[in-house]
């Protein structure tokens, strides 16, 4: 049983996503919508971390195949210019996708062992992650023509 591994992966990924949203909020201040929204989305990730914390504790004693290489790193700083913005949002999209699919893994595991606490967490957190992805797709689609063609 590798539930512990799954929970840790998710916890780490949410943490990296939160950090990356904050970096984008700070680093792209001139994009006024990002400054406000990326902070809000980072807060959501922090809420997810709080929800995950008791689960991580509960399954801490289980075996894990750690230490392993972190699957995706947080942003190591923001890029500049219109294309840089698109690239940063793309990176956020990768991180958020990893979070989303890991919530799916957790849901599958939770359903299998009838763990109501896990299922409750998955229920609302995954919905928020899906909205984060939808927002990133929306924002990237809007930014792409100007960044790729006119800049």
């Amino acid at each position, binding site marked *: 049983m590798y539930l512990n591994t799954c929970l840790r992966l998710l916890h780490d990924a949410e943490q990296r996503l939160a950090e990356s949203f904050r970096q984008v909020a700070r680093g792209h201040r*001139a*994009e*006024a*919508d990002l*400054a*406000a*929204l990326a*902070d*809000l*989305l980072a807060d959501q990730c922090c809420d997810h971390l709080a929800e995950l914390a008791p689960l991580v504790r509960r399954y801490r004693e289980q075996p894990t195949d750690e230490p392993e290489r972190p699957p995706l790193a947080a942003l190591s700083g923001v890029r500049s*210019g*219109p294309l840089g913005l698109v690239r940063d949002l793309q990176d956020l999209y990768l991180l958020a996708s990893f979070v989303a699919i890991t919530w799916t893994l957790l849901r599958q595991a939770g359903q299998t062992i009838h763990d109501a606490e896990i299922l409750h967490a998955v229920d609302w957190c995954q919905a928020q992650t899906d*909205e*984060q992805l*939808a*927002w990133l*797709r*929306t924002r990237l*689609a*809007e930014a*792409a*023509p*100007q960044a790729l*063609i*006119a*800049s």
Partner: protein
Amino acid sequence: MSEQPVVPDRVADPWGRRTPYPAGGNWPTRVDEHLVAGVSADQVRQWVTSACVLCSNGCGLRIGVADGRVVGVRGQAGDRVNRGRLGPKGLYGWQGQQRDRLTTPLVRAEGGELVACDWDTAMNRVVARSRELLDRWGPLSHAFYTSGQLLLEEYYTLSVIGKAGLGTPHMDGNTRLCTATADAALKESFGTDGQPACYADVDHCDTLVLHGHNAAETQTVLWARVLDRLAGPDRPRLVCVDPRRTEVARHADVHLPVRPGTNLALLNGLLREVLHRGWVDHDWVAAHTLGLDELARVVADYPAGRVADICGVSARDVLAAAEVFGTGQRVLSTVLQGVYQSHQATASACQVNNLHLLRGMLGRPGCGVLQMNGQPTAQNTRECGANGDLPGFRNWANPRHVRELAELWDVAEETIPHTGPPTHAMQIFRYAEQGSVRLLWIAGTNPAVSLPDLDRVRRILGGDTVFVVVSDAYLTETAELADVVLPSALWGEKTGTFTNTDRTVHLAEQAVPPPGQARGDLDTWLDYARRMGFRTRSGRPLPWWSTPAEAFAEWQRCSAGRPCDYTGMSYQALRERHGIQWPCTPDRPQGTERLYVDGVFNTDTDYCEDFGHELLTGAARTEQQHRATAPGGRALLRAAHHTEPPHGPNADYPLRLTTGRTVYHFHTRTKTGRAPQLAEAAPAPWVELSDVDARRLGVVEGDVVRLTTPQGSVELPARVVRAEPGTVFVPFHYGQRASESTLDGGRTHAANELVPTGWDPVSKQPVVKVCGVRVRRVGAGTGPAPAPELGAARRVVVGPPGATAAGGDRPCT
């Protein structure tokens, strides 16, 4: 009632004499007239059909002409909007058109100054730059930022030039600042733009709820109609949601002075009460809406006590307001800038729609929602696509809608930009700042005063990253920064139509010629298109029309079969019948008073204007997602949680700054500031402080105070008012010119110096009504602040200690 014109003093009394009437009665006629001194009515040679363009009411009027000059205006007795009345701006504002006009084009010379020239020189310069940029960078290098004050024919023509000629998605109006949220909320809830209710609902309602809508100052003639109902035999109950103690608040049965930025929490609380107290029309909701479970789940978190804590009002008042709304039999709700320009704008405006959907209270006399417009022709900016949308409320994400337009315009589908939503104003300015929008054409608006974070806006317009063309009637703060300035004709100097906030279309005919070489924006844009050589696939010039009447006929074709159908109208019918409400088709030539009378909304996936968004982030829904929910004509109950405003108060900036419009002025005062009665009534800006805050800061009436936010600071004379402590108000009309006669000469007093850049995630409307601010006394002033003794700006009467504590007293009626 008498139809003899009355010659009022609308400055002293903006609403005029009462003409009370009962529920279901006809609002009595009262004809207001103003002629310049020395001219009597019998000297007027001609009364020309028109309507007022100084707020979204669009009051029908006639323009009096003598000796080739406009000498006055008279309200149109038979007009459904105003029944003869005119407000202060309508009566006096037109005089501002007779001063300081631009009469020749101007181009920037080598030495940097603007110099007069002829049209050929100016247009050649525009076209040369435009061609060069188009060849090198393509259509994404071009952007247009226009107005809510031009005419339908002008907007539609520009829309066609932008979308079918150039092919740029970068087009917006300053309607983004005033009415984008009305538009967005209507799309989210009902599937397309389009005002559900109408002004006649004031005649029928038994309950009125005004959300962030200071109607007494923003639409004085609408407020006169409300006052006449309040003074009549069966007075409707009135709820006012407004941080300030406005004239509306003074008449309200319940006033909720919410903290700026907390509308959504209040509305969620009201929705919760409506659900919990069982004021829901369950059969109607089941048949005509989608999303009740999700809405109920979200609003369950907003019991009155929590709402009271967030909003800074008493739980008892929240419950009282809910009860007034929930027990009314015919409820009319209105929404304006207190919601639209504030935090979580679209989410909040949608909740007002939801309140009415839960009660099944739409589409019947007295029952409805007015998602108001700010500017007189904002509706046309939206429906014609001058706000960037596809015209006729078409959906850019629906390939069939794009094809319809391609066929109508005889251009390739690929030409029409539809990779995403149109680029909104703030993003256009961002692209200009980054240098990827290289030509920005601004018409009939003054962003160097009206946009947030003015330092930045002026830097962009005055810098060398973007070639700026300005079409305007005056040398505004914006025109002064342009590379080319084109002189525009104004209202009364050109012919065309426009549509007010309750879908009433008026014809505004030319009464006098424009001054000097000035000409209508329709002519200017057609000239540009001809010089650029835009063509249809079959080789016709694009646009192929040249007169307003031809442009109107083309728009009728474009509107056919869409919610804003104009096919049953004509200039002649508008001339005879004054105002006609769309949709108006050949089999419904009388027009349509209310939308959605059958409870069928425009949400069918193939018909709707938008597939919707998540309200918190603005994440777009896809066609697939929309189709999967199968709304099929049912309205959508969209829900969202309250969040704290990102630029709200904190330890360094502890008060809440809010900005707004006041009764005597419009927009950046380009016209009203030049009309003597209006300029004199409110000559310079001020700041309103609550008496409680004033005492704490050691400020008395007229003292000069400095307001500071992270964006900047301004110094203004203080008006001490009775209001909830913690909220500070500055009128937003005043730009650089306001200060010439006051205080520190030269320095700008624009409220927007203080406001950070930020916008609603769905409507993209800038947030100018909530940010943290610090206030310090600078010194004594030279007397009372130059604010009107009226409405929310009314001075606190100094009484014994304690007598001026905020709140508590009953409103006078």
